[in-house]
Structure formats: structure tokens, C-alpha cells
């Protein structure tokens, strides 16, 4: 496979996943901001999205929302992610199936024509729309793409991004908690933690595992360590390890990226949530995001892109 094709697939996977996760992040902010007395919620979202420094310190809510949703200068906005994914797709049409291309190309004009006021007025509709785009694309890939190296590069991009974004989502809660760390429990705290679950489409799944017992420890454990929930960091890293192993078998060669993924899986498997909270969840998340970025560049180096 051409290195350029592999690179485009990897980044297409990342961009689509990021558009999806950014929609989820905004959705979470929206839910948290509806509570009485809310004020710092959107700032927290901006910090978790890693773009607080690109916005003015007292940016309004609608400014933050449009920045994350539509801004053409923000490379991580939903608009830019989907546009970039489509550009990548166009550059490597031959590596995609018709279904995958159509999933990206269909309704494309809607997004191009969308203006900020309209988007904010109908925010839930547009967030659902973005999530549906990602779901349609993933579904098309899953059901039509040959299981060759192209599939692996696409999935690697998706899981790298998803691991990182789940960690970031969890971190929003950390930022929201900051000003009032002493108030744990109570309706407000409960609402915030369950918003994290909703944003990751994990309410039902969590319920199956913890029987409705919503605790910060349970939720953090679920999103970081659970091996069966498809958006947990551990699940994503296991998938990364498995897909990288497929490549190693196919190519008969192992690289740094293989060691990094394997080591992260060992680390997550050997972790328990109480000690994680003791040493600091936020610090752990920051470190895991760094490792994820390193993994991404190790993958590009190993496969010449």
C-alpha cells in the first residue's frame, strides 16, 4: 500500500472520530450548562478540547460552541474534521469503498451552508447529525472494506483518537469539579457524572456492569479500565495492540509502536481505580494522552508516512 494512502486512511479515521467526540463534548457541555448555577461549564469544555488557549479568556458560551462546531480556523472543529476527512477520502478514493465515500460525501452541502445562529438554535440536531455521519462512515467501513492493511490503518487512526478523546471527556469533569472539590455527591455532582456517561453513549452499558450505582469511582473505572466497553481507554488500547499485531504478522516486522501499545495495555490492566484517584486522575489522564500522541507518531514512522 502507498504510504500516502496509509497516512490518509489513518488521519481520516482520526478526523472522523474527532468530529464524533467533539460533538459528544459539546453535548456534555450543553447538559451540564443547563443546571441552575452553572457558569464555568463551557470553559471546562474548551479546556478539555485542548483549545482554551486559542479562545479569549472570557469567551461567551456561543463563541465556544461555534468555535468547536463550525470554526474554519480551528482544525479540530467538527466542520474542519469532516472537511478534512472528505479531502483525505478524495485523495485516496481508490482505497475506499463506494459506501464509505458516499457516507462522507452525502449531505456534505448541509454543513457547508450551515451558519452559526442556525447551528446554536438547533444544537442537538446538529450534534446528532455529526454523530450520525461518523456512525455511517464506520458502519460502511465495517461492512464493505476489505480486511487488509488499509482497514488496519483506518482503525488505528480511529482508536488512537478515541482513546484520547475518552480521556479528555473524563477530564472535563475534573475541570468542572475544580472550583468546588469539596462538594462530592449530591444532585449536581450526580448530574455531571452521568453527563459524562451520556456523552460516551455509556448509560446503558454502565448500568449493566454497575447496576445503576453511579459513583465517580465507578464511572472513571468504567471509562478508563473496562475491557468490554468500546470507548474505554483500555478497550481502545487493546484494539490498537491487536491491530498492530495484525500488521506485524502481515509485514513480518515489529516496531516501537508495538511496544508502546503493549506496555500501555499492561499498565491499564495492572491498575486499580482507588490508587488512580489517590495519585491523581487528572495527572494520569495527562500522561496517557502524551503516550497516545507518541504512539501516533511511532506508527507514522514505522510505516513510512
Amino acid at each position, binding site marked *: *500500500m502507498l*504510504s500516502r494512502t*496509509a497516512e490518509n486512511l489513518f488521519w481520516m479515521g482520526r478526523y472522523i472520530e474527532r468530529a464524533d467526540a467533539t460533538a459528544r463534548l459539546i453535548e456534555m457541555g450543553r447538559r451540564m450548562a443547563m443546571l441552575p448555577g452553572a457558569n464555568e461549564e463551557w470553559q471546562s469544555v474548551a479546556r478539555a478540547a485542548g483549545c482554551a488557549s486559542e479562545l479569549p479568556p472570557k469567551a461567551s458560551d456561543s463563541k465556544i460552541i461555534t468555535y468547536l462546531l463550525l470554526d474554519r480556523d480551528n482544525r479540530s472543529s467538527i466542520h474542519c474534521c469532516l472537511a478534512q476527512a472528505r479531502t483525505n477520502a*478524495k485523495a*485516496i478514493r*481508490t482505497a475506499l469503498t463506494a459506501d464509505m465515500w*458516499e457516507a462522507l460525501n452525502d449531505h456534505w452541502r448541509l454543513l457547508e451552508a450551515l451558519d452559526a445562529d442556525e447551528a446554536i438554535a438547533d444544537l442537538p440536531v446538529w450534534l446528532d447529525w455529526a454523530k450520525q455521519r461518523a456512525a455511517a462512515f464506520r458502519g460502511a467501513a465495517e461492512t464493505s472494506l476489505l480486511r487488509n*492493511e488499509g482497514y488496519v490503518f483506518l482503525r488505528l487512526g480511529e482508536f488512537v483518537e478515541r482513546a484520547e478523546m475518552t480521556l479528555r471527556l473524563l477530564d472535563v469533569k475534573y475541570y468542572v469539579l475544580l472550583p468546588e472539590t469539596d462538594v462530592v455527591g449530591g444532585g449536581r455532582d450526580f448530574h455531571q457524572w452521568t453527563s459524562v456517561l451520556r456523552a460516551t453513549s455509556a448509560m446503558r452499558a454502565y448500568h449493566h456492569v454497575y447496576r445503576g450505582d453511579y459513583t465517580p469511582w465507578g464511572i472513571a473505572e468504567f471509562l478508563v479500565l473496562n475491557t468490554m466497553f468500546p470507548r474505554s481507554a483500555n478497550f481502545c488500547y487493546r484494539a490498537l495492540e491487536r491491530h498492530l499485531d495484525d500488521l506485524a504478522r502481515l*509485514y513480518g516486522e515489529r516496531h516501537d509502536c508495538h511496544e508502546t501499545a503493549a506496555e500501555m495495555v499492561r499498565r491499564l490492566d495492572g491498575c486499580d481505580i482507588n490508587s488512580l484517584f489517590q495519585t491523581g486522575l487528572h495527572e494520569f489522564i495527562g500522561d496517557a494522552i502524551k503516550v497516545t500522541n507518541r504512539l501516533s507518531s511511532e506508527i507514522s514512522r514505522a510505516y513510512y*508516512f
Partner: protein
Amino acid sequence: MRASDGSIRSPYEQVAAWLEATGEANLRQRQSEAEALFRRLGITFSVYGEGGDPERLIPFDLIPRVFGAAEWRKLSRGVQQRARALNAFLYDVYHRGEIMRAGIVPESLVYQNEAYLPEMAGFDPPGRIYSHIVGVDIVRTNDTDFQVLEDNCRTPSGVSYMLENREIMMRMFPRLFAACAVDPIDEYPTMLKRTLQEVAPPACKGEPTVVLLTPGPLNSAYYEHSFLADLMGVELVESSDLFVNDGLVWMRTTRGPQRVDVIYRRIDDSYLDPLAFNPDSLLGVPGLFSVYRAGGVTLCSAPGSGIADDKAIYVFVPEMIRFYLGEQPILKNVQTWRCSLADERDHVLANLKDFVVKQVHGSGGYGMLIGPHATKKQISEFRTKILADPDAYIAQPTLELSSAPTVTADGIDARHVDFRPFCLVGKQVRLAPGGLTRVALTKGSLVVNSSQGGGVKDTWVLSE
């Protein structure tokens, strides 16, 4: 659709009955369904620099252009004959130049032509083939005759529309197909790949690796490039994906470098290799041309093929057929006046309003004068241009374009059409039963180029 006496020509009988039965309103409805389909599939071409959405749809007309089996036999033999003669001519101009020694083609038209590449002199491309895909633009001039408007020997485009138009039509009108017995064209990509494999270079051992080289997604024909690469199952590469090492061409892959044997290039000569041609270009693969010269890789078409589709050379194609093949030309040329010759120039200048004047090196309908539709000012501007550089212009009479029924805003009406079949030249000469019919959508207009608002139709060749 109709013969000169007004009767429906026999290949069109079924289609005429179908038009009658379907009705205009229904047709227009289907037309918009077809366009939605094109849009969803992303079958677009790109026009940059004119503002607005750069991704345009080529307007698609539902009413097919139909050729009867006997008509097609003649046409296809004529096209194949031309493709063979043009390749013989290319071999000759880069070797002994016998057609010039024989006094048939003036030397100055060849050796002083920008499309002539001295670097190619004396070189034998594999199979002595220079132009592997020849697109010939043809018009019908009366009930039995076809004439050739021009030849495209470099990188003719539009074959993806031939294939996609058919897909759309088959999807929308299955019963009509069943009734008409239309010859299938889906073999074209396989024929193209076989043609490309047949011209593998001497250095190639085993199954040749073919790639399609594109300038990239910003090129107006990018859709076609990716479409063809896809159907052939070959890599679609950009020049940055290729490099030269150890006397061979390689592509960058996730497993490291991989050999490339045949390059179907859809980029111009001047962007192939900055070392050999245009040193200012950032595109291109440094060293590619010397690998080609040494037999390490095949370029399709060969650099320098453009000399054969130069409009000043076009005039001599019937002579070429006689000279190289010893055959009578099956297809006529449209009568063409060369402004480089004083007599012909005077005639053209005296009757500009009746002529289409084309730039010798121009393409895509740019830099043309359409006499009957031109203003006095445009005509006088062209007069000045021709006088300043007579060698750069040819002129053809305008009356020769045939027309075909087309769905328009005011009902079904005749619009001018031309036709481009794609002839493949490898160890064999191959032609799929079909081609691209282009239609001028404005009433009375003669311009069919997609860049100038022309549309396309499906082309049917009826089975024997």
C-alpha cells in the same frame, strides 16, 4: 435521430417510441433523479478560479445517442485505422522522418512545433507505441458520413463518463435496454489494463506493475483518474509517491519501495521530470525520463506524442493513412483551412463569420472563435490575432456539427453533438463499442466542451 428526409433513422426506432411513451414531464423528473445520483456518487469535475462551488456536475441528458451496428462497424474501423496511422507517424517523426522527406508534411510544422520533443529522437518505446489511448472527436455530417474534428493522442479524458452514463441509464431504464440490445462497454477497464501491461518495458520481469499518475485532487479530471485506477485495480499515484533509484522507478509504500513498470500518466510532458523538461516545476519525478530512455519503465503516452494531435498536423492524417498503411481513409477530415498558407488565410479572413477558428495548440474550447455567434468586435480581434501569428490558427466551417434530441427547458429539442470514442493501442488495437457523446446545451451553440457548459449523453451501439 432523423434522416435528412425527416424520417426516424432505423437505429432510433425504439428510442423514439420510448420518448413518445414516456412524455416530457416524466423525462424531466427522471433527469433530476439522475443528477441527484451523480451528485451523491461524487461524479464531478472541478473548475477552479471562477468562484462558486468548484465541484461541478456535467449536465447529463437522458436521451441516448444511438449507432446502428453497421454504422459502428465503419466508425470503429475508421478510428482504429487513424490510431494506427498516428502511431506510425509518431514513430516516423522521431526516427527517419520519411513523410517529411516525401514532401507530404512540411518539416517546419514538425521540428519547430512546441509539442515535438527532440529528447525523444531515435528512441524506441516498447512495441513502438507512442499513443496508447487515442481519443478521436467525430461528427456526423449527413445520413452516411462521419468526419473527424480532431485527434487527442496525449491524455484524452471523458471515458469515465462513458462508463458512468451507462451505469445511470441502466439503473433508470432497464426495460429500454432489454428492448434495444445495446452492446456492453464494461470491458473497457480490463482492455485498458491489458493494453498497459502489454507495453511493459524491457527491464520488467514477470507481471508488470501498472500505476496511474495524476496531478492530484485539484485536477479537473481527478474523478476520472481515481475511477479508472479503481476499475483497473492499480495504484493511483501522485508524483511525490514515485522516485528513481538504481535505474528504476519505485513507489513509496508502507513496506518500503516497490517497483513500477508502466505509468499511465495523466499529466503533461512538462511536469514529468524536472531534470529533463521543466526545471521550475515542483511536480514530476526527477530522473524519470532517463529511466524511461534506458528501458526501465514505460510512459503511456510517450513524451512528445502531442505532435500527432496538433491541429496543424491533423490536416495531414488522411495522407498519413495512405502513406504508412497503404489504405484509403475510412473517416474524412472536416475541411480545414490553415492560416499559415496565404491563400487559405485570405479565404478565412474574408469569411470569418462562417468559420470556427481554433488555436493550433489550444484545447478544451478555449481560445476559439465561433464565427456565426461572434460579435463584430470579437471578429475584428481575431482578425488581428490571426494576422499577428497566422501559423497558430486553423479554421473549420461551422455547418458540419450534427444534432440529437435533447431534453431542454422548452421540451425535447435538437442540440449539436459530437462523439469521442477511445481507441486503445497495445499489441492489439482495441475499441469498446461506445464512447463519449458531448452535447451543446444552449440552442444553436456549437461548443460541447464541459469547461464551457457542454453536457453528455450515453452512447449506444446496437448489437448486430
